[in-house]
């Protein structure tokens, strides 16, 4: 039996071989997410804007020195060799156009930095500061930083391509910093973001998961004081994790920091199952029962509660599939598989291995006596004063729930990453000078050649001016209208009077043709204007503002455009937009999921406990702690990312555990004919320790997730830990006091006390 199951689980675990890290931030968005669809459409038209941005600063303070410009030049040249680089933009290769008599020269702004004289550098700086497509985009407005922006077309079918690219970028940086001491280079950009997700995941799996294991082992050893018990629980956890992760591998999951929480989740829940069995066996063996008998009886007694809690937890995790974000589906499915395996193993494998290994328990330890003492105090208070306890707990919960609306949801992805991570430091630096993320405004009049219409370009120009006025939100605006104005000037012998939108459409399209014919490899306009010349995009580099502020800004931009946009339609996309609405979309979907989950739990509990009223009653201790946890979070932290949407599904399944164990013991006593009060006392005595123990373990396990360098996981872990803790409190106070109160009310008002309607058990 034992070897057979071990082999079976390991076979599942083999699927883990196929797991790989997702190298693309896009995985966070479902294929039907309308924002995502719009973004993909835009990318099909203008190319993927995935990039690596080298942000350069120097000890000297200003980048306008011969050596720094030489460094920019070298880095620009070298960047072309980065994997799948399709475009490199910097101060030195900016395609400067100059009109001289009848010639149009389009050339690198700094073709050869070695020959730059101080006077030329002064002229260069003046030119850069006048040019809207350099100033604030390729060089910082205060001259303290410059950027070399590399657009990469990463194929989706090459494994680990994002991290390979970022590694190559780091090598390039090392080389350039060797050549130019005193130069500081940070690496940001969308490719670096995707790689950072991967690195955060790796970091978690190499530090966090071992930490959780260590914690659990220590707790187990302290509580159970048996090496055999600890070792067999460890085996159970490992095998259940193999199954969960293996199922993920077989179904082609791409790992993200979010789905990497699955092993931790499986571990904590598997351990809870094991504890119920082990604690039961232990107390029976203490009572002098023979080992085999103790195992058989414990397994029999715990079969129902373990099955119910496993089922509700599995259902809870499966509702994550309603989320808009695939990583949550992965987390849900991997956890569900692992939990199902843990359930099966804890009623088959665990008793079998315990029967096989020499299991002994030392004498009762003080820790459990202490917890027993504490529980006894709670038990006394609840039984003596159920009314007051119920009122107090209900009041506290009400206050906390009232605080929920003060919670702010923010998915500023820069904040997902801990300040310890290099990427976070890079964004913080880059943001000061260039902004950190883009919003793309796409205007598509839907007619070939429309982008060169004078009224269209004028609309573009005034929108660009409006955007530049939004200084709190916008760091820089890149617009075709600037290119057109410059070309008009160039083709009129650089006469400043002609720095304006060309007066006719034919003129504008022919200018564009000249310009296009003059641009070198990789620096064409295909990322700005579509092949049919019918649409263009204006790129706003955004400051690192919160998602709430982003939404407000987008609202204003849309409003401005609808009244001043000359009847054209504005489409808004970009990664900043994706993240601005990701929480909303996930919460919407998961709210429906939560309702379905509550109904499912109600159905499962009503059926398995065979009482409709108990099923209804159980909803209160299940839902309240969850809501109260959100309230407590609002009070303590106030801000949360879109992972908040998953907390409900993850926590509810765990919380139900407490209620089920408490109620099943209560009902067992009631069945024996005990009074309500005696049954409550019986529940405290039989289920109390196990509930306390599992709560401590679960809360500790989830709380450890809080040390993740990835904020979404940290939030998820802490919130779940809070909810689990509160759930225990509610189940020890509100649940029994309600049972007692209802009983008192019934005896007071009932005309037929002989047949209480609640006792529909045989």
């Amino acid at each position, binding site marked *: 039996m034992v070897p057979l199951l071990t082999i079976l689980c390991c076979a599942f675990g083999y699927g883990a071989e196929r797991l790989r890290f997702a190298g693309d931030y896009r995985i966070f968005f479902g294929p039907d997410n309308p924002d995502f669809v719009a973004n993909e*459409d835009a990318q*099909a*038209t203008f*190319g993927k804007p995935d990039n690596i941005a080298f942000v350069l600063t120097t000890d000297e303070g200003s980048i306008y020195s011969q050596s720094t410009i030489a460094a920019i030049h070298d880095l620009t040249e070298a960047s*072309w*060799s*980065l*994997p*799948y*680089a*399709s475009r490199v933009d910097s101060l030195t290769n900016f395609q400067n156009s100059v009109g001289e008599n*009848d*010639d*149009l*020269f*389009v*050339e*690198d702004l700094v073709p050869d930095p070695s020959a730059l004289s101080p006077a030329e550098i002064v002229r260069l700086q003046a030119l850069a500061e006048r040019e809207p497509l350099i100033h604030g985009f390729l060089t910082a407005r205060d001259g303290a930083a410059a950027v070399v922006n590399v657009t990469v*077309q990463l*194929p989706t079918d090459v494994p680990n391509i994002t991290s390979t690219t970022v590694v190559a970028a780091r090598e390039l940086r090392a080389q350039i910093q060797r050549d130019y001491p005193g130069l500081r280079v940070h690496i940001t950009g969308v490719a670096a973001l995707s790689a950072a997700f991967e690195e955060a995941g790796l970091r978690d799996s190499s530090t966090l998961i071992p930490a959780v294991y260590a914690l659990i082992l220590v707790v187990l050893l302290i509580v159970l004081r048996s090496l055999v018990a600890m070792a067999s629980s460890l085996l159970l956890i490992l095998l259940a994790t193999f199954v969960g992760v293996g199922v993920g591998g077989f179904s082609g999951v791409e790992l993200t920091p979010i789905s990497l929480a699955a092993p931790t989740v499986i571990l904590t829940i598997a351990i809870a199952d094991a504890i119920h069995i082990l604690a039961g066996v232990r107390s029976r063996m203490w009572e002098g029962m023979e080992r085999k008998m103790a195992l058989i009886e414990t397994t029999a007694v715990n079969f129902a509660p373990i099955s119910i809690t496993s089922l509700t937890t599995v259902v809870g995790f499966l509702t994550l599939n309603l989320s808009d974000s695939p990583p949550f589906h992965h987390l849900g499915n991997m956890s569900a598989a692992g939990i199902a395996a843990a359930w099966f193993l804890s009623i088959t494998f665990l008793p079998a291995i315990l029967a096989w290994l020499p299991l002994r328990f030392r004498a009762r330890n003080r820790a459990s006596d202490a917890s027993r003492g504490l529980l006894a105090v709670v038990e006394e208070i609840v039984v003596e004063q159920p009314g007051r306890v119920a009122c107090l707990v209900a009041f506290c919960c009400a206050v906390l729930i009232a605080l929920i609306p003060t919670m702010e949801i923010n998915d500023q992805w820069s904040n997902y990453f801990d300040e310890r991570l290099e990427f976070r430091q890079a964004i913080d630096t880059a943001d000061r000078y260039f902004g950190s993320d883009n919003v793309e405004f796409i205007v598509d009049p839907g007619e*070939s*050649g429309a982008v*060169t219409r004078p009224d269209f370009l004028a609309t573009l120009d005034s929108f660009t001016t409006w955007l530049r006025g939004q200084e709190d939100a916008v760091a820089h605006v890149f617009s075709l209208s600037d290119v057109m104005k410059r070309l008009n000037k160039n*083709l009129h012998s650089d006469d400043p009077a002609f720095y304006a939108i060309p007066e*006719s*459409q*034919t*003129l*504008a*399209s*022919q*200018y564009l*043709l*000249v310009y*296009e*014919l*003059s*641009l*070198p*490899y*990789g*620096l*064409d*306009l*295909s990322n700005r*204007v*579509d*092949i*049919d*010349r019918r649409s263009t995009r204006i790129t706003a580099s955004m400051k690192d503002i919160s998602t709430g502020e982003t939404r407000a800004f987008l609202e204003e931009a849309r409003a401005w455009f609808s009244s001043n946009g000359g009847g054209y339609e504005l489409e808004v996309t970009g990664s900043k937009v994706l993240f601005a609405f990701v929480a909303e979309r996930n919460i919407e979907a998961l709210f429906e999921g939560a309702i379905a989950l509550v109904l499912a739990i109600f159905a499962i509990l009503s059926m398995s406990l065979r009482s409709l009223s108990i099923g209804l009653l159980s909803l209160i201790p299940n839902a309240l702690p969850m809501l109260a946890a959100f309230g407590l979070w609002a009070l303590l932290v106030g801000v949360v990312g879109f992972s908040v949407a998953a907390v409900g599904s993850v926590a509810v399944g765990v919380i139900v555990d407490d209620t089920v164990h408490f109620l099943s013991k209560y009902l067992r006593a009631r069945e024996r004919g005990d009074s309500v009060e005696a049954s409550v006392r019986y529940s405290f005595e039989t289920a109390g320790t196990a509930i306390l123990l599992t709560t401590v373990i679960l809360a500790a396990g989830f709380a450890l997730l809080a040390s993740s360098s990835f904020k979404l996981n940290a939030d998820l872990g802490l919130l779940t830990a809070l909810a689990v803790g509160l759930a225990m409190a509610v189940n020890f106070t509100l649940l029994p006091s309600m049972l007692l109160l209802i009983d008192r009310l019934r005896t007071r008002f009932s005309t037929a006390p002989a047949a209480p309607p609640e006792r529909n058990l045989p």
Partner: protein
Amino acid sequence: MKPPRPLMIGTALLVLCHASLLARANEGLESDDPTARGYAIAKRADESDAGFGSSAAQLTMTLSDSRGRETTRELRIETLEKQGDGNGDWSLTRFFSPPDVEGTKLLSQARVLKSDNQWLYLPALRRVKRISSSNKSGPFVGSEFAFEDLTSNELGKYEYIYLGEEDLDDGSRVYKVQCNPLYERSGYTKLNCYFDTETFQSRRIEFFDRGGRLFKTLDLLEYRRYPKGYWRSHRQIMVNHLTRKTTTLQFGEFDFGVELERRDFDPSALEIP
């Protein structure tokens, strides 16, 4: 037996002569040195086109993006065969559509290792503008073709390394030759060129970017042989593997009969409608 001696000698001479001619044509083709062999193949390809003088052809350029959205451009290209060392073919391209650029003419005097000389006539301005250019590597009017892909394959543009023989999908046998660009500002690190073993025409070219990765493939299809023996492909498809955009050039009949001269390829001639 009275063998007609002079005739025999003549025949023998002729055979010898022919053999040596053949040998000269095949010179280097069997060489063990991959560089010499690669060069010999490219030279044969180049020679197969020598002496065409001038030609003209109408052409439709179809651009399509990764979602298959398409747009077309109508052009006519007149070509004057290269004259003198260091020069490539000269070409005059007239744009007929899109309508906004109708009447625009691009004159390009290709040079092998230097930037080309280019002038553009803009009807909206009624002016000829000289355009600068280090742009040989840049895309031609938003297509996946760079200037350097369109201008004829001058021998001196590359260093050649013979890699072997292969079969194409249609079963025809080709020489695979690696071409390393000698032009300093080329957008490519190398090309893999596939020459037909029978006609020595270029059948496929694979382009490798500055990072050394394959990023474009050009297939030259629908070859036809014109009366004077010159081969022309009538359909060329360039696929960009990174952006998944494609550009198709569909040529009409090549007209080798047009009488074009140097002065037709002078900037001042551009203003003549």
